[in-house]
C-alpha cells in the first residue's frame, strides 16, 4: 500500500511537477546527484541542489518549515532543505489557495491549515523516517538467504522473532 492522499487539484499538481521538471531538463546536482527539479537551484552552472549550495556556503542545510502555512500558525519543524522544497512545499500547493494564504486570518481556515499540514508532515515522516526500514530489512533478508539459505535465522538469536507456528 502506498501512502497517497486524495488530491484536491490533481491536474494542477501534475502541471507544477512537469513544468518544474521541464525547466531542469535532465539535470542533476553535480555534487550529490539530487535530481528532483524543485530541489535544484535554477540556472546554476554547474547544476547544484539547495543542500549542496548551502553546504558550500557554510550555511545550515535545514529549513524551518511552517507545517500549517505561515499565515495559519507560527510553529515550524526543521526539515532538510531539499525535502522542504521538493516535498512539503509542493504538498502545500495542492491545498486550496484560501487555506494556504488565509489573508484575513480566518480561524476555520487556520484550523484547516493545521490539519492539512499535520497530515502532510506525518506522511513525509512516514516515507522518510519509517518506510526505508522495511525496504532495508527486505534487502537484508534477500542477502542472508543468498548467503546462508532460506532458514538462515535458525539457531541465531533472531529465531525468537520468527512468527509462531511457521514451519
Amino acid at each position, binding site marked *: 500500500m502506498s501512502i497517497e492522499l486524495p488530491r484536491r487539484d490533481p491536474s494542477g499538481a*501534475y502541471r507544477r511537477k*512537469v513544468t518544474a521538471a521541464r525547466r531542469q*531538463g535532465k539535470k542533476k546536482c553535480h555534487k550529490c546527484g539530487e535530481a528532483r527539479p524543485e530541489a535544484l537551484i535554477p540556472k546554476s552552472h554547474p547544476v547544484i541542489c539547495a543542500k549542496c549550495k548551502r553546504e558550500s556556503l557554510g550555511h545550515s542545510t535545514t529549513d524551518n518549515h511552517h507545517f500549517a502555512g505561515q499565515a495559519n500558525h507560527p510553529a515550524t519543524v526543521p526539515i532538510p532543505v531539499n525535502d522542504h522544497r521538493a516535498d512539503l512545499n509542493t504538498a502545500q500547493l495542492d491545498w486550496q489557495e484560501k487555506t494556504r494564504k488565509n489573508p484575513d486570518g480566518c480561524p476555520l481556515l487556520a484550523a484547516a491549515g493545521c490539519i492539512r499540514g499535520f497530515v502532510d508532515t506525518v506522511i513525509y515522516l512516514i516515507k522518510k523516517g519509517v518506510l526505508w526500514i522495511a525496504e532495508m530489512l527486505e534487502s537484508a533478508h534477500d542477502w542472508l538467504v543468498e548467503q546462508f539459505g532460506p532458514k538462515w535465522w535458525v539457531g541465531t538469536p533472531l529465531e525468537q522473532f520468527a512468527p509462531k507456528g511457521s514451519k
Partner: protein
Amino acid sequence: MVQNGGLAHLSNSLHPRDQNESATESEPLPIAVRVYPEGGKQKSEASPWQCPDAMLVFDTETRIDQTQRLTFGSFRFLVAGRCLEEGLFYGADLPDKDYQTLERYVASHPAGTVESGVQKLAFLSRREFIDKIFHDAYKAQFLLVAFNFPFDISRLAWKFGTARRQPFTGGFSLELWSYPANGQEHTNRFRPSVRIKQIDSKRALKGFAGRKGADDEDRIPDDSETGEPEEGYTFRGHFLDLRTLAFALTDRGHTLESACKAFGVEHGKQRVKRHGVVTAKYIDYNRRDVLATSELAIKLLEEYSRHPINLQVTKAYSPASIGKAYLHAMGIPPVLQRQPDFPKEYLGYATTAFFGGRTSAHIRKTTVPVVYTDFLSMYPTVNSLMDLWRFVTAKEIKVVQGCQAEIEQFLQKLTPDDLFNPVTWKSLTAFAQIIPDGDILPSRGEYNPDTKDWQVAVNYLHADRNNSENQALWFSLPDIVASVILTNRLPRITSAFRLVPTGELESLQPTKLLNEISVDPKNEDFFRVVIERRDPLPKFVPNGTGNSRC
C-alpha cells in the same frame, strides 16, 4: 502536355475503341495526375519521444439543431492509466432547466476516480474547463484524447476562423480561450488557438498555434537535455484522435463502439434512445463514452507500444506512417536522403504514374456469372514478385534512359502465360511515356458529376487526336502490361526509362515486427516476411475480428 503534374485534357471513354468510331465523339474529360513538388522541408531526425503518462479525455454533447452547439460534456484526467479527476462542463447558453439537471446530477453522483483522486465530480462552465483543466493540459503537455477529435474540440471553441499557415492552410483556427470585457467576449492572445485541417474522414492535422508572451517553460522542447528555452520553438500539442490511431493500427475505419469491441475494452460504448435532451440517463451515457474512450486509449497505446518504432503516437496517421517508421527502424532512409542528386524530373514522371488502390464494379445491377477470387496481401505480393526490396535497400538507384525499343520488344513478345513466371515480374521496374489511343489505363477524373471528387478508374483512354503529341502521359510498366493483355495491342510509346538498384545500404539493421517477428533487411525480403508471417501473427484484436485481406 504536363510532364510532372497538373491537368491534361484527354478523352476517357468507357467504350472500347472501334476503328469506325472516332474517339472525338466521346466527351472530353479532364484528368489529373499527381505531382512531385520540389522544395519540401527535409525532416530532421526525430529524437526518441516519451509518451506523456497524463491524458485528458473528453467528449461533448450538442444540440441536435443545425448549430450543434455545446450543451454539456465530460472529462477524465488520468495519470498512468488511473483516473484522478472526473467532471462535467456545460455550454454558456445552456437553458436553466438543463443547468439544474446537471447540478442535481453532480450533487448526487460520485466521480469514477481512484481512491487518491478527487471523489467529487467537478462541475465547470466551458470557460472554467478551458481556463483550468485545458490550460493545465496545455502547460503540462498531456495527451489530449478524444474519439473524432476535430468535432469535439470544435464544440469547445467560442469562435473560429480560417487557418492561414501551412500545413493548416484552408483548415480551421479555433479560439478556446477568451475573456469578457465591455459586455463582449474577446480572444485571449496570450493563449494558443487550435488549428485543425481535415485530411479525410479518419484523419486530421491538429496543432496549437503560437501565442503572445509564451512562458519560458513552454519554449522548452520535449527532448531538451538542458531545460533551456529555445527561440522560435512552439509547443504544438499532443492531440490523439483515437479514430485515427485505431485506423493506423488496423487499416479499418472504426466507430467508438466497433473499436471498443475490437480491442476488448471492458466498459464499451452504450447507446441512448434520445439525443439532445439533458437528463440523468443522457449524462450517464456521456460519462460512459468518456470512460470507454479512456479505456480504449489505454488499449490502443499498449498495442502501439508493441511496435519498436520511433514515431510519436500522435503522428501515426495511417498504416503507412507505421510502415515508414519500420523502414526507419531498419536503417533505411528516404531515397533523397541517401541520394540527394537523384534526378528530380524522374521523380516527377514516376509520381504522375502513381495511382493508389482502386475498387471498381464495371457491370452493375445485372446478373452475370462470376469467378470468386481472393488475393492475400496483394500489395506486398506484387512488391515481392517485382523484387522491389532491392530498391528499398539499395545504396543508389540508377536511371537507365532510352529503353523505348527494349520495352516495345518486351511487350511484343509478352503473353499472359509469361506473367505466371516470376522472372517476368522482375523486369517490370520501368516507366514509359505513351500517347493513349484506346489503351486501357488508369486515370484520375471527376467521374461522378454530382460529387465531383477525383477518382481513379481504369478505362479506355484517348489523347485528343487534334493535339495528341502534347498529351503523352507516363505510366508504370505493370499498368502498360495490363493494357497490352486487355487490348491485345501495343501502345504508342514516346519515351521510356528503367530503374536499376545498385549496392546496398550500410545502415541496414534488423528489427522485430510487433516485437515478435525478426526481420533482417540485409538477408530477407521484408515484403515476403510480411506475407508469410501474416497468418501466424497474433491477431491485433483480442476478439479476433481482424486480419483483413486485400
